C-alpha cells in the first residue's frame, strides 16, 4: 500500500490512507497546511500552484462539507474543478467504475478526489489510473478518510502542540467509521501517548485493541483526564440492525453533556467531524460551548486539503516549506 502512495523519493503521490505513511510525511502535511493558512487572510485568497490543472471531485456518495472544502481548496490553488456526483446504486458493477475512470482520463484530468461506499475503492482507482493521475481519498467505505484525520490533527496541534503528552478519546460508532480508523492511525503515528475508543460493544470492531487503542464501554471512564474528545456521528440506521436500542438511550449513556465533561481535563477540546446530531452525540451547550472546536475543524479542512493536493501534484515539495519566499511557513494558531 505504501508503495502506491509514495514515489521513489519518498514524496506523496496519492493520498489514500494514513496507514503506510510515516511521521515525516504527516508532519509535512501539517506544516504545509500551516503555510497556507495565511492565504485565507489575504484579500485575494488564491495562489497559482495548480493553475491549469483539472481536478475532479468524483463523489459516489453524498457529501456537503468534504466536497465543498475540497472544491474551495482546489480553487484557492487556482485549479479548474469539476464536480461529479454519481448515484452509487447505478454503479455497483466494477466495470462501470473503471469505465467512469477511463472516461475522465480521456478528458485529461490531473487529479481525482474520490468518495465511494466500498472500502478499498480509492486504492482500486489509484491502481488502475494512468500514472500521471493523482488520487486523493475523500472517504472509502469504512476504511479511510485521511484528509479528515489530518485536519483533525492540525486542529489538535494548533491547540495542544505536542502529541506525546495527550490522552485522546474517540467516542461513538467506531465500527462503521472510516474517520475513526484514520484518526487512530494518524494519532498513533504522531506519537500520541494514549488513544481510547468509547462505545458499546455493538459499535466496536472486532479486536479493536489491535489498532493500538484502549477500549471503554463507559463514557465517564473513557474520557477521564482526556485532553481531546472526538465525538463521531451516529447514523440513525444503527437502530435498525439492533446495534442500539434508541437514540434516547444512546444520548443517556454516550451523549456528551457539561456534567459528564467534568471528568475530562479542564483544557479539553471537543471535536466532531460533522454534521452533529444535537441531543444524540452531544447537547447544544457542549457543541456551541467554549471547548468546542468543531467550526475550526471545518476551516482547517481547507488548509489541509490545499496541502495534500499541492504535495501530491508535486507543486510543493517539502523543501519549499522552509523557503523564505514560500507562503508563511511558521504561522501559529489563529
Amino acid at each position: 500500500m505504501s508503495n502506491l502512495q509514495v514515489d521513489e523519493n519518498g514524496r506523496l503521490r496519492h493520498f489514500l490512507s494514513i496507514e503506510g505513511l510515516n511521521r515525516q510525511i504527516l508532519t509535512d502535511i501539517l506544516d504545509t497546511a500551516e503555510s497556507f493558512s495565511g492565504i485565507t487572510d489575504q484579500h485575494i485568497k488564491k495562489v497559482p500552484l495548480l493553475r491549469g490543472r483539472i481536478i475532479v471531485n468524483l463523489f459516489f456518495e453524498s457529501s456537503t462539507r468534504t466536497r465543498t472544502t475540497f472544491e474551495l481548496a482546489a480553487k484557492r490553488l487556482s485549479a479548474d474543478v469539476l464536480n461529479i456526483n454519481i448515484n452509487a446504486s447505478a454503479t455497483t458493477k466494477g466495470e462501470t467504475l473503471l469505465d467512469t475512470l477511463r472516461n475522465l482520463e480521456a478528458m485529461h484530468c490531473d487529479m481525482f478526489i474520490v468518495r465511494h461506499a466500498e472500502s478499498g475503492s480509492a486504492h482500486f482507482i489509484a491502481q488502475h489510473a494512468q500514472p500521471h493521475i493523482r488520487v486523493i481519498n475523500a472517504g472509502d467505505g469504512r476504511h479511510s478518510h485521511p484528509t479528515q484525520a489530518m485536519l483533525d490533527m492540525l486542529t489538535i496541534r494548533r491547540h495542544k502542540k505536542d502529541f506525546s503528552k495527550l490522552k485522546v478519546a474517540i467516542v461513538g460508532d467506531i465500527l462503521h467509521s472510516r474517520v475513526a480508523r484514520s484518526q487512530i492511525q494518524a494519532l498513533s503515528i504522531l506519537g500520541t501517548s494514549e488513544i481510547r475508543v468509547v462505545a458499546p460493544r455493538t459499535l466496536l470492531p472486532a479486536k479493536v485493541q489491535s489498532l493500538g487503542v484502549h477500549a471503554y464501554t463507559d463514557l465517564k471512564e473513557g474520557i477521564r483526564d482526556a485532553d481531546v474528545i472526538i465525538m463521531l456521528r451516529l447514523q440513525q440506521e444503527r437502530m435498525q440492525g439492533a446495534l442500539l436500542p434508541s437514540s434516547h438511550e444512546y444520548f443517556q449513556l454516550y451523549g456528551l453533556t457539561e456534567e459528564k465533561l467534568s471528568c475530562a481535563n479542564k483544557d479539553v477540546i471537543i471535536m466532531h467531524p460533522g454534521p452533529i446530531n444535537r441531543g444524540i452525540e452531544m447537547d447544544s451547550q457542549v457543541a456551541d460551548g467554549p471547548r468546542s472546536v468543531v467550526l475550526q475543524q471545518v476551516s482547517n479542512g481547507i488548509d489541509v486539503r490545499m496541502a495534500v493536493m499541492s504535495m501530491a501534484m508535486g507543486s510543493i515539495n517539502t523543501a519549499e516549506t522552509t523557503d523564505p519566499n514560500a507562503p508563511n511557513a511558521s504561522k501559529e494558531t489563529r
Partner: protein
Amino acid sequence: MRIVIRNGHVIDPANNTSEIRDIYITKGHIVSTGNAPDGFKANREIDATGKTVCPGLIDLCARFREPGLEHKATIVSESAAAASAGITTVVCPPDTDPIIDTPAVAKLIQERAGQAGQTRILPLGALTRNLEGEQLSEMAALRDAGCIGMGNIHAIKDTKIMRHAMEYASSHGLTVFIRPMDYWLYDNGCVHEGTVSTRLGLPGIPEAAETTAVARDLALVEQIGVRIHFSQLSSARAVQMIARAKHDGLPVSADVSAHQLFLTEMDLLDFDPVHHVQPPLRNQSDRDGLRKGVAKGTIRAICSDHQPHEPDAKLAPFCATEPGISALETLLPLTLRLVEEKVFTLSEAIACLTIEPARILGVDSGTLSPGATADVCILDSEKIWQLQKHNMLSRGTNTPFNHWEFKGKVTHTLLAGRVVFELEP
C-alpha cells in the same frame, strides 16, 4: 485398449500400497497390479520409472460454469485443466444457471462432460428448489439423473426446512452436502471478522457464522441420522466440533479447500481481490487448526473449490468483486506441499485426494484395486516448476498462487483407461 504402466512407484492408500509395481489396464479397468495377466498384450506401454502412480484425483467441489456462465469457463476448457492436474472426477455444485434442481440440468452437465471426454462430472443436486431454502427439490428424480448428493451452497435460514430436507434426503439414501454458514451472521460480510477487517474497514464475517451453523446441523443429524458432509470449512473451532461429533459416532464428514491450508486474512492487506473467497480466509490459528484436522483425519478430503472468473469479475473494489479462486491446477501441487511441510505423509496426502473423497461420495473409484475403473494419475514427484498464470489451462486465471514454486508435476492422466492428458516432454 490395453495399457501397461511400468515400473512406477504405486501409491494406493486404499490398499496400503506404496511400492514399485506395474499396472495393467484392459477395457477401462485395472486388471492387475504386479504380475501380467495371462496373455496380456499391451497396445501401449507407459514408462513410469522414477515417477509416482496413484489413482486419479477426485475433487469434491469444482465449478465448470456450464450451463449459464460460459463467459467465465466451459466444461470443455475446465475438463482440460482438470485432466492436466490429474483430476479425473469432480463434483459440480448446484449453483449453475439454471440451477441443478431438475433432472434435465443434471443430465445436460454429464452429457457435456462425456462429450468433452477428459473428466467425469458428478453433479450435486440442489437441496431446495432454486437454492432458495423454501421448498424441497425432487431429490429422488435428481438422484436418478445422476446427482451424487444434495447440497444447498447458500445458507438455509429456516431450521425446520433444513430438518425436513435432511429427513427427505435420508429417506432416499442421499448424503447432504452443507457449506456451514449462518445466514444472519454472514450478513453482508466479505472477509474474516478480525484484526484485518478492523484495519481495512471491510465488513466482517465472524467465526460464529460457521460454528453456529455447524452446531445447528449437528443437532439435527443427531436426531435424524442423515449422512452429512460439511464442505469447505474455514475455522479451527468447526473442526473441533466435527471431531467431537465423529467421536460420538455421528455420520459426518468434512473437507477443506486447499487454499485455506495456506492463506490467511493477512494476505488481504493490499486489497487484492484475488484473495476474495467464501468462506473467508481466517487467521493463522484457524489455518493451523485446519491443517491439524487434515493430519488427524477429522477432515478427510481436500478439494479445490475451483471458481474460474473472467478478468472483469475481479476488477472492482474488494467486496464488490466475485469471490473464488481458479484452483484446479493448484489442488495437487498445494497438497504435495503439505507433505514437504510435514503435515502428513505422501500416502495420506494422496488419500485425501482419492479414496477418502470416493468414500464420502460412495463411488468405487479412488483406488487402483483390480476391477476398479482405470482412473490413474502419474506424476513426476521430483519435478520443480513455477506456476505462471498465462500457462494455466483453466479459462480463469484468478489465482493467488501465481509465481509460487511447486514440487511434483502430473505427466499422465488416464480416465477409464484412456490417456486424457500427457505432458509434452
